[in-house]
C-alpha cells in the first residue's frame, strides 16, 4: 500500500509508538525475567539488577520444575490437553464456519438473518453464566473432565466469531469470480475449491488464529469442567503449589506462562505470511 506520509510525520509516529510498545512489552518481559529467577532471587531484590527486574544469575530451575520436577505431573499433561483441545476445536470451527459463512454470503435462503443474529446472540451471554448449568449437564451425561467436554463449549465460543469474520471476508470476494468459474466449466464445488477457497485463504487463516487464541486462553470452562483428565494449561497454572506451603509458586507459574506463549508466537509468525491482504486486487479493475 502506498502512503503519502512524509518522512517527518513517519519519524514522529515512530517516536510516539515507542511508549505503546514499552507498555505492552514490559509485562511480558517481566514474566520472562521472573521465570528465570531462582527462588531466592524472587524474595531478595539485591540479587537482581535494574531494580528487581532482571536476575543477576539466570537459572532454568523453574523450567526444570515444570517439565521434569514436581510440577511436571500437573503441567505436561495440561500442555498436551491444551494443544489437542485447541487444535481440534479450531479445525472443526473453521471448517464449519467456512461452509456456513459461504452459504450466508452467497446463497439466498430463508433464515439467513436468523443464523447471523443467533450466532451473535450466543456470544452475548457471559461465559460464567453458562458454566454452572454446563457443569451439571456434563456431569450427568459423562462429558465432565473429558476432551470432548471442552471442545464442545470452545466450538460454541469460537463458531460465532469465525462465522462473522468469514462471512465478511466472503462478501468481499467478487461474485463474478465464481460465475466465471462456472461458465468456464466448473461445478459449484470446483468453483469453491479452486477459486473461492484460495482467495479466502487469508481470511480463513486469520479466523483460525483468532479461534485458536480464544480457546487457548480460556480459563473459565477449563477450570470448571475438568479435574485431571482434560485440564488445560491456564487452569492448571492455578493448581501449582510451591515447594512448601510458605512458598509461592511464582517462578513456576511464570515459566509455564512463557511456555504457553511460545505456540501462540510461532502460530502468528507462521501465518503472518499467509495473511496477505490485497490478494484479491487485480481480480477486478483496481
Amino acid at each position, binding site marked *: 500500500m502506498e502512503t503519502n506520509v512524509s518522512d517527518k510525520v513517519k519519524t514522529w509516529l515512530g517516536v510516539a509508538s515507542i511508549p505503546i510498545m514499552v507498555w505492552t512489552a514490559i509485562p511480558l518481559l517481566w514474566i520472562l525475567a521472573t521465570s528465570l529467577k531462582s527462588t531466592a532471587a524472587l524474595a531478595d531484590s539485591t540479587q537482581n539488577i535494574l531494580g528487581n527486574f532482571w536476575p543477576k544469575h539466570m537459572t532454568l530451575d523453574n523450567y526444570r520444575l515444570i517439565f521434569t520436577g514436581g510440577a511436571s505431573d500437573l503441567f505436561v499433561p495440561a500442555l498436551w490437553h491444551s494443544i489437542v483441545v485447541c487444535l481440534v476445536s479450531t479445525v472443526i470451527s473453521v471448517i464449519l464456519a467456512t461452509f456456513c459463512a459461504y452459504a450466508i454470503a452467497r446463497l439466498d435462503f430463508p433464515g439467513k438473518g436468523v443464523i447471523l443474529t443467533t450466532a451473535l446472540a450466543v456470544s452475548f451471554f457471559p461465559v460464567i453464566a453458562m458454566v454452572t448449568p454446563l457443569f451439571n449437564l456434563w456431569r450427568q451425561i459423562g462429558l465432565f473432565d473429558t476432551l470432548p467436554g471442552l471442545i464442545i463449549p470452545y466450538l460454541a465460543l469460537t463458531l460465532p466469531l469465525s462465522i462473522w469474520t468469514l462471512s465478511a471476508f466472503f462478501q468481499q470476494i467478487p461474485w*463474478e469470480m465464481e*460465475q466465471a468459474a462456472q*461458465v*468456464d*466449466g466448473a*461445478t459449484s464445488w470446483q468453483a469453491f475449491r479452486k477459486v473461492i477457497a484460495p482467495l479466502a485463504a487469508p481470511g480463513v487463516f486469520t479466523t483460525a488464529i483468532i479461534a485458536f487464541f480464544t480457546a487457548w486462553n480460556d480459563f473459565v470452562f477449563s477450570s470448571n469442567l475438568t479435574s485431571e483428565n482434560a485440564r488445560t494449561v491456564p487452569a492448571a497454572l492455578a493448581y501449582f503449589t510451591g515447594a512448601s506451603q510458605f512458598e509461592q509458586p511464582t517462578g513456576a507459574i511464570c515459566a509455564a506462562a512463557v511456555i504457553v506463549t511460545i505456540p501462540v508466537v510461532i502460530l502468528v509468525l507462521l501465518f503472518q505470511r499467509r495473511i496477505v491482504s490485497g490478494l484479491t486486487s*487485480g*481480480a*477486478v479493475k483496481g
Partner: protein
Amino acid sequence: MSRIELKNIVKKYGDGFPAVNDVSLDIADGEFVILVGPSGCGKSTLLRMVVGLEDITSGDLLIDGKRVNDLAPRDRHLAMVFQNYALYPHLTVFENIAFPLRLQKGKHSEEEIRRMVHQASGMLELDEHLDRKPSNLSGGQRQRVAMGRAIVREADAFLFDEPLSNLDAKLRGQMRTEIARMQRRLGITTIYVTHDQVEAMTLGDRVAVLKKGILQQVASPRELYEQPVNLFVAGFIGSPPMNFLPARVSGSTLHLPHAEVTITGDLVEKVKGKDVVIVGLRPEHIKDATVETTPEHAVHFTAVVDQTEWLGNEQYAYIPFDADRAVRDKLDELDRELDGEGMHPQLIVNLDARSRVIEGDEADLAFDPALMHVFDPESGDNLTRDDEKAAQIAKDSEAQRRMALERAKKREAAKGGAA
C-alpha cells in the same frame, strides 16, 4: 459453432417486475449480435440468462435446436467475458487461460494445454506476460487475458458483458477492432452487451435495441439508422442524437418551429386527424445552404445559431426552440428513457467544417424532406418507415455478413495451409 434461439424469454424477479419481457431473437451461426439499450433495460440480464447465471422465468432458450433452459452454465459450452474481467487473482496469466482446460479432466494432456494456451496468448499478444499475476497487468492486458480464457475453450459461442466499459477511450477503440477481427477470424457466434451505441453500430451484424426489458427492434446497424421503427430507437441510435421537433399538422403541411414542410403520398393519410406529430431529423441531414449543394426539393429555413463547436472535421451548431405543449411531455419522457439530462430542447446541426457560421449568426439551413422521419406522438411509431427498403437493407447486410465470414474463413484456411 452454433445457432442460438431465444423464444419469448421472460425474466421476473421476486417482486413480479419483468426485467426482460417476451424477448424473441434468432441468432444465426457465426453472427455477431449486439444487445444495446440504456441502463436498466435488461440487456445484461438477458445475456446472463443465455449463459445460465440467471434462471429463465418462462420461454425457451435453444442452442443448436436443443432446449437448454435447465442446463447448468458449464453444460452450455459458452464462453463469457465479464465486465470486470473476473480474472482469478491467485493464478498466473497462463493458469488463468488454462483454467477452463484443466477443468475438463483428462480431456487434454499437459502438452496440449500448453500448446492451446500459447496459441491463444500468441493471438492476443500476451506471450511475454504469461508468468505474471493479473494484479500486475494493465486494464487492456487484463481484458485480453479474459478474452484468452474465452477463446481457449473452443466454446460454441462468445458472450461479452460490456467488456470495454472499464477501459479508457483510446484503448476502447483498439480493443473494439480487436474483438471484431477475432470474431470474424474465428467465425464464432457472438452476443455482445453494451450501452454504447458506437460499439453497437461498429461491431454488430445485427443490433437488438431493448427498452425496459422489451425488444424494440432487431436489425442491421444501417437499418436501425435509416429505418428506425419508433422514437426510442431513432433517439438511441446516432451521435449526436436525432433531433425531435414538434410539428403542427394542417392538411398536407407540417409546421415545424423553423420551417414548413409539404408532405406527399401515404404520409398525408397517416397524419390525418392528428394535431401534432414529432418530426425526426438527423443533425447530419441539415446542411448549411451557403457552402453545400442541396437537392432541388430541399426545405430551406433560417435560424439564429446559439452556439457552435468546431471540431476540425465537422462542426456542430445548436439552435434552441420551444417545444409545443402537446408533445413536450412525450419528448421529456423520451429524454428520460434515453438517460438524458432534461435540457431545454435544441436543434443540433452537424455542419460542414467549411461553414463559417458563428454564434449569433442567422444561418441559412436546408434539409431534404425525404430523409425526415415522422413519428406518432402517442405510440411513438415511425410513420415514415419504409418496410420494403428496410427489407432490402436487411438482405444486403446479411449478404455482406456471409461474404465477410466466407472471406475470413478462406484467409484462415490459406494461412493454415501455409503454416
